[in-house]
């Protein structure tokens, strides 16, 4: 056990440093937030990588080496338009603060004649090298109704035009927070409609912390496994357990900037291998190693030459780059989700897992947890996510009946976001009404104890 549990302190510290880096590097994964969340694109930065915005492809080279949180805009140069960093000092956004305005929309006629600038005019401006901001100013100058709008509505108008003619690209750090939010917004079904606050509760309820061994059943494309690995920071293990012969996809783990040190701590193992006694296991385990190696499911953390991975598959936005096209060629560096070594499996059998998280909407919670609870250390917490209440209620009832755990609770988080502006503070008009249910509890000692 000691050989596995012992951390190479130096490399672990380095692992944290890479993951917590605040400046981008060549080969790193970034989340591009285009126009304030209108579009979210995962990219891997390389000199050859591009992103398509509007009708143009833009090289991502200028993004390499910039701090996360940098804002970029489209600029036109001799070789055509390119992405350039917005000077933060010039970002002074004037927020309208007069709240006692008497203007209103009583004189507004919605006849589509307010704007005198035509599409051709705008194209002409563009070809003469006008910047997006200049076009926005021209549109405002040529709008017959702009002057009569309230300052709030002028601001809205400006923002709308800015998004179209002067898009802003924010370079976000791919962390559990941003990754979960991005998927929840664009592809909620791929993460089983797991909202970020629900995910945060799962991590708390399962007491996820460095130097733990966390068992997960993650059929949510790897979001759970990735989130746990992030919290472990290269200390301890996260074991993605699967039923049958094929590990579950851990696609989302690639979106994190995990160092090889952290990737090594993400392993997979079949539930049957975890449950069998030791002698049987060593054979089985060998077999599974062979089986999994040929499968494309195991993933590689980095393929530097790759272009862009977009979240948007059947996109309604005008994004055309290839999606999900990370090359799955094996690479030298260690992979996340490799089969657990016999040694580590033996350690888990001797000591038990520190906790368990289940996010598997297609599997009945009770049928899966009754087999997994014995693998947990005594007094280990667990948390099960499900979109439906009834399977969790039944599961809770059965756990109670069989006296396997205490402190059982089913909770549903409710999250409301607010607009906070001078004299205009109110909850957002649109909200997510549902983030899923969580059954949590603490395993107790059987009669043997």
């Amino acid at each position, binding site marked *: 056990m000691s050989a596995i549990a012992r951390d190479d302190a130096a490399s672990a510290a380095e692992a944290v440093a890479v993951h917590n880096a605040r400046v981008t590097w060549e080969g790193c994964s970034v989340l591009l937030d285009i126009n304030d969340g209108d579009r979210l694109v995962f990219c891997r930065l390389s000199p050859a990588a591009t992103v398509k915005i509007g009708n143009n492809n833009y090289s991502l080279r200028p993004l390499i080496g910039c701090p996360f949180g940098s804002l970029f805009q489209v600029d036109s140069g001799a070789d055509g338009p390119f992405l350039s960093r917005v000077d*933060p000092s010039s970002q002074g956004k004037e927020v309208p603060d007069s709240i006692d305005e008497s203007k209103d929309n009583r004189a507004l006629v919605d006849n589509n004649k307010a704007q005198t600038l035509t599409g051709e005019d705008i194209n002409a401006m563009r070809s003469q090298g006008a910047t997006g901001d200049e076009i926005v100013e021209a549109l405002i100058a040529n709008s017959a109704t702009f002057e009569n709008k309230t300052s709030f509505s002028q601001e809205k108008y400006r923002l709308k035009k800015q998004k179209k003619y002067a898009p802003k690209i924010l370079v976000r750090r791919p962390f559990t927070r941003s990754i979960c939010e991005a998927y929840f917004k664009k592809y909620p079904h791929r993460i089983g409609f797991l909202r970020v606050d629900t995910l*945060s509760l799962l991590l708390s309820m399962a007491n996820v912390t460095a130097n733990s061994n966390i068992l997960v059943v993650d059929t949510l494309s790897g979001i759970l496994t990735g989130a746990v690995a992030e919290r472990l920071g290269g200390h301890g293990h996260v074991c993605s357990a699967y039923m049958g012969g094929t590990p579950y996809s851990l696609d989302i783990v690639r979106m994190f900037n995990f160092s090889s040190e952290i990737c090594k701590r993400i392993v997979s193992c079949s539930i049957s291998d975890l449950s069998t006694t030791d002698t049987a296991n060593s054979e089985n385990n060998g077999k599974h190693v062979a089986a999994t190696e040929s499968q494309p499911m195991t993933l590689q953390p980095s393929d530097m030459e790759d272009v862009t991975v977009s979240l948007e598959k059947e996109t309604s936005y005008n994004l055309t780059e290839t999606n999900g096209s990370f090359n799955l060629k094996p690479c030298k560096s260690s992979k996340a989700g490799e089969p657990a070594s016999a040694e580590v499996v033996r350690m888990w059998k001797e000591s038990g897992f520190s906790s368990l998280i289940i996010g598997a909407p297609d599997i009945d919670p009770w049928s899966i947890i009754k087999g997994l609870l014995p693998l947990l250390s005594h007094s280990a917490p667990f948390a099960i996510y499900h979109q439906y209440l009834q399977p969790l209620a039944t599961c809770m009832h059965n756990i109670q009946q069989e006296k396997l755990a205490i402190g059982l609770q089913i909770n549903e988080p409710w999250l409301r976001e607010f607009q*906070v502006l001078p004299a205009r503070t109110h909850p957002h008009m649109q909200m997510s009404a549902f983030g899923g249910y969580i059954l949590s509890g603490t395993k107790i000692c059987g009669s043997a104890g």
Partner: protein
Amino acid sequence: MLPTDETKQLSFNRRIAEGDLVIVYERHDTMKAVKVIAGSVLQNRFGVYKHSEWIGKPFGSKALSNKGRFIYLLAPTPELWTLVLNHRTQILYIADISLVVMYLELVPGCVVLESGTGSGSLSTSLARAVAPSGHVYTFDFHEERAASAREDFEKTGLSNLVTVGVRDIQGEGFPDEFIGLADSVFLDLPQPWLAIPSAEKMLKQDGVLCSFSPCIEQVQRSCEVLRSSFTDIRTFEILLRSYDVREVNIKDSNEDGLVVSGSRKRRQFSQEDAEENSGHQVLARPSPEARGHTGYLTFARLKCL
């Protein structure tokens, strides 16, 4: 509380030992933190429990009182600690805590600044997130409260991860030694806007600040100050709805004779029948009482230079 010490890690072989902190569980709403000392006893409405009988048992075991009533002995976690700690102030609970840790983007190795310390409920979870190599520096202007918090971190084994300072952060700001070193800052102060300019200096670029305030007026003023150097300013309210699960007997109207008016004989038969076929169902409904408001969480990201 945290598995930094290998010998204290939870495992099948881990036994309760002298000096361990255990969470004594009577019911889901009746728990207590107890330090195990041979020769000491715990007394509650179920009788007297000898600590000496606990030593050598695994965590998660039952312990019997002199009257034969049992409790469970659980290993402490930040979640359980939040339920048992001494309230010196209003504390943060699991829903707010979880969202704070997630949105502050805490990972092992991070440095996080907090003020006020209060009862240390959040600090415990912050420490768990940044362990083993990160650190939580937490400040409270109340000397006794800081001292009690320090004792608590000693008790929970977190004192190597949490440093408690006595300082009026609203008045003096965070100490200069942390300038540019904090990955995240958390404020739970009556006038957070006074501390924001200092928090801004402490944060690394793109670092995240969170301010927790019960009142919307506080949020309003904080956001006005945040707008000058922060971006991505978002305010949330998070609540938990918990569910009661029961096995309920719901009768079928056709079988209990209420609708089908039949003979007495028929009715008796139906009742037996209904029980056998079990109108018993496991059902869930929201608990009738819940916390309606804790506070607003405002997150903001330091603008990049």
